């Protein structure tokens, strides 16, 4: 009897939910209608005002309705409380310098938390909140933003209002932001290729007279590691890190899934280089070069390196021939060995981009503003550095459009240049010196480009399989890098079998099909 009652309760609940759902469909429709109405009236009024202004004003330049472009960016620093001042400053500048190109236009920023940016932008879009431009939200890949209908196609807008952008971005890079023939994002010029390096402690290199310059791969480290193991009882010879020690992606694209030389999609762990390095690491582990508790320190890599008890460790983020960056970061003298420079593939080009939101009330104006950021270096840099005197000071070259500046301590405004525009337009500063920018640009320009640059993988047909394979890969990376798999070949075979059961064959087949299709469509 009681069960019956509860069942009745349950069914009542379900009825309620359905009523709500149907009510909501009504609501949704209603709000859609009103928004359409609003845009309709908007265009009416703008037509009216245009005709009126045509009558009254003598110049026949069409004036634009006042509009504030809302730019969603990630909070670069915790305290951005200078926001109102900077926005006012930027808007004054626009009114003064861009009255003819961008009349009646203002800019404002909506700041979101980096780690939650993807969710936040999805939520804002789902709620229909009006915003115009958004930088790439971490955790929401462009493919998802397009598939979910958050970003709109930009081709017409770019042709009409984005000529500066079109000129500044190389055609080959546009491919990365193109889905089904349409551009959905503006890929900002950035450091697409970053050499990965490993770092050796300088005093030990000198002590054991190790020829670090001849190191090509991690197996060449053996004599040095052995010497350290023997001669330095308090030291741990090796502290390996994922990318730099296990992977070499100079001949593989798509995180290892695509073999450039054979032009085939492969299981990333079938890569011979990876297998060989995994074996080397396992050997090092058995010989005691790697600490047994290494894996528990995976979340504190930087901190571990700073202890100074390792002879060989990953670089501090940026490879630097002189080892200076790592020396500074770790707090002891180091030398650096380059391991490899990755290919420029789609995912690298999409490290920094901007989209226009489907909820934008005026996409044209959004594009005009973004174009202006590419056209006016001063405006762009002010949006990044803030207001002179409050957030930064000019060190030299005042009055030019490329002064060298220094950010003031406790500045409460920052947007990293690559988030909203071309990094190469950034004014040299304490963030990046002119030389550093030059070097990064050179590195990017000279780096090898993946033959499938521009191919964007669509996970939709294989998302179930990918969702199961992803955790397997994460697991393998950790175990292989730590060298703790006693029998590498057996382990690799076991895991591959797991992946196969999760649908690896289907994934490879589907990706191959997508790539073939893409190649055919692009004449490659």
């Amino acid at each position, binding site marked *: 009897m009681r069960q019956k*009652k*509860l069942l009745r*309760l349950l069914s009542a*609940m379900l009825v309620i939910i359905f009523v709500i759902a149907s009510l909501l469909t009504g*609501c949704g429709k209603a*709000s859609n209608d009103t928004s359409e109405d609003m845009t309709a009236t908007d265009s009416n009024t703008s037509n009216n005002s245009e005709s009126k202004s045509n009558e009254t004003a003598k110049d026949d330049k069409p004036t634009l309705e006042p509009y504030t472009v809302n730019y969603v960016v990630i*909070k*670069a*620093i*915790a*305290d*951005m*409380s200078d*926001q109102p001042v900077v926005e006012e400053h930027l808007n004054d500048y626009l009114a003064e310098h861009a009255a003819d190109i961008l009349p009646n236009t203002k800019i404002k920023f*909506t*700041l*979101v*938390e*980096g*780690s*939650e940016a993807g*969710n*936040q932008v*999805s*939520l*804002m879009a*789902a*709620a*229909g*909140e009006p915003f115009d431009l958004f930088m790439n939200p971490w955790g929401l890949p462009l493919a998802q933003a397009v598939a979910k209908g958050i970003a709109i196609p930009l081709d017409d807008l770019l042709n009409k209002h984005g000529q500066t952008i079109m000129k500044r971005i190389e055609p080959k890079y546009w491919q990365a932001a193109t889905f089904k023939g349409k551009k959905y994002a503006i890929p900002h010029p950035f*450091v697409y290729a*970053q050499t990965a390096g490993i770092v050796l402690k300088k005093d030990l290199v000198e002590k054991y007279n190790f020829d670090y310059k001849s190191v090509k791969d991690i197996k060449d480290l053996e004599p040095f590691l052995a010497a350290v193991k023997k001669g330095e009882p308090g030291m741990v010879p090796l502290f390996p890190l994922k990318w730099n020690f296990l992977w070499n992606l100079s001949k593989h694209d798509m995180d290892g899934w695509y073999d450039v030389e054979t032009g085939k999609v492969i299981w990333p762990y079938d890569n011979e280089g990876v297998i060989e390095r995994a074996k080397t690491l396992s050997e090092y582990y058995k010989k005691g070069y790697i600490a047994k508790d290494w894996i528990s320190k995976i979340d504190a890599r*930087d*901190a571990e390196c*700073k*202890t*100074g008890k390792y002879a060989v460790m990953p670089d*501090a*983020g*940026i490879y630097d021939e002189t080892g200076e*960056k790592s020396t*500074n*970061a770790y*707090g002891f003298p180091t030398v650096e060995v380059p391991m490899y420079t990755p290919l420029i593939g789609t995912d690298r080009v999409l490290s920094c981009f901007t989209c226009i939101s489907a909820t934008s009330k005026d996409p044209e104006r959004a594009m005009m503003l973004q174009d202006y950021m590419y056209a006016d270096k001063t405006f762009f840099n002010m949006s990044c550095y803030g207001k002179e005197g409050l957030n930064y000071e000019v060190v030299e070259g005042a009055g030019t459009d490329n002064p060298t500046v220094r950010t003031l301590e*406790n500045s*409460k405004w920052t947007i*990293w*240049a*690559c988030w909203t525009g071309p990094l190469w337009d950034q004014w040299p*500063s*304490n*963030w*990046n*010196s002119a030389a*550093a920018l030059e070097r990064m640009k050179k590195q990017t320009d000279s780096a090898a480009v993946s033959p499938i640059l521009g191919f964007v993988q669509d996970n939709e047909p294989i998302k179930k399989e990918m969702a199961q394979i992803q955790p397997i890969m994460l697991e393998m990376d950790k175990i292989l890098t730590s060298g703790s798999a006693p029998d590498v070949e057996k382990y690799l075979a076991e895991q591959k079998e797991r992946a196969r059961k999760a649908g690896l064959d289907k994934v490879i087949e589907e990706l191959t099909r997508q790539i073939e299709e893409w190649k055919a469509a692009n004449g490659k």
Partner: protein
Amino acid sequence: MKSDKNYNKIKLSKLIIHLVLILFTLFCVVPIILVVIISVMREKEIFTTGYTFFPKELTLAAYKQIFLNPKQLLTSYSITFLTTLVGTIVGLILTTSMGYVISRKDYRYRKFFSFYIFFTMLFNGGLVPTYIMIVSWFKMKDTFFALLFPYLCMPFYVILMRSFLQTIPSALIESAKIDGARELRIFIQIILPLSKPAIATVGLFIAFNYWNDWFQSMTYTTKINLFSLQYLLVSIMKNIEFLNSSAGRLMTGSTVDLPQYSARMAMCVMAAGPMLFIFPFFQKYFIKGLTIGSIKG
């Protein structure tokens, strides 16, 4: 003689109780002391010697890092204080009245509404519908209400309240009814005074909920003057991590290290510290020995 023996026995039992509790106190406190000590350790020392109870050198660098903008910190403290205060009061009104009604064994829809509340503990529609409701229907984005509303009537507390109030003898309510009292009067004049400990307990939990929250602040506010304390701290911490990370170095070109490990601990101290003042306020109402008889008379 006998009473003396009894007295000794009581004393001994008290001693044992204290011993056990002190042991548990140590269990709770030793790690906390470690947190406080790490918060004043130098980063360099943390790296080289690891966490220790006896650091060689003390520094307030981590606190300085957090206090870079004291005005903002103060704003966030007051936002958090205000949400906690208002949220606790309004939340208690909703929770207590609901909990009381479904605790009444003679209430006709008791089972229905108990289930009605419990159901929401298990099933929820996820963040998307809630966000749409708060932002586009109620227009509460960037308002104080977005921080307040989501925690006002939590099912867990309602059911907890129900259990507390169930212990009130129904005879008490019956006799009041025979005297002709209406339900609202019974609730306010008889039930509430009797359930001070229950209200204080649930109130304490609601208050902590508000005090610890950063998720609502992150989801519903973009203006820094509405950031709750915890969110501000989370945000400062994430920033330090970013600036110390390789991606951060790539963008800033900086190689300066900000205190990270000590700062995290310092933030914990700053967030939990004020609890020392909040807690006793509620404990005032943990009154032992209310007797039904005294209320009756």
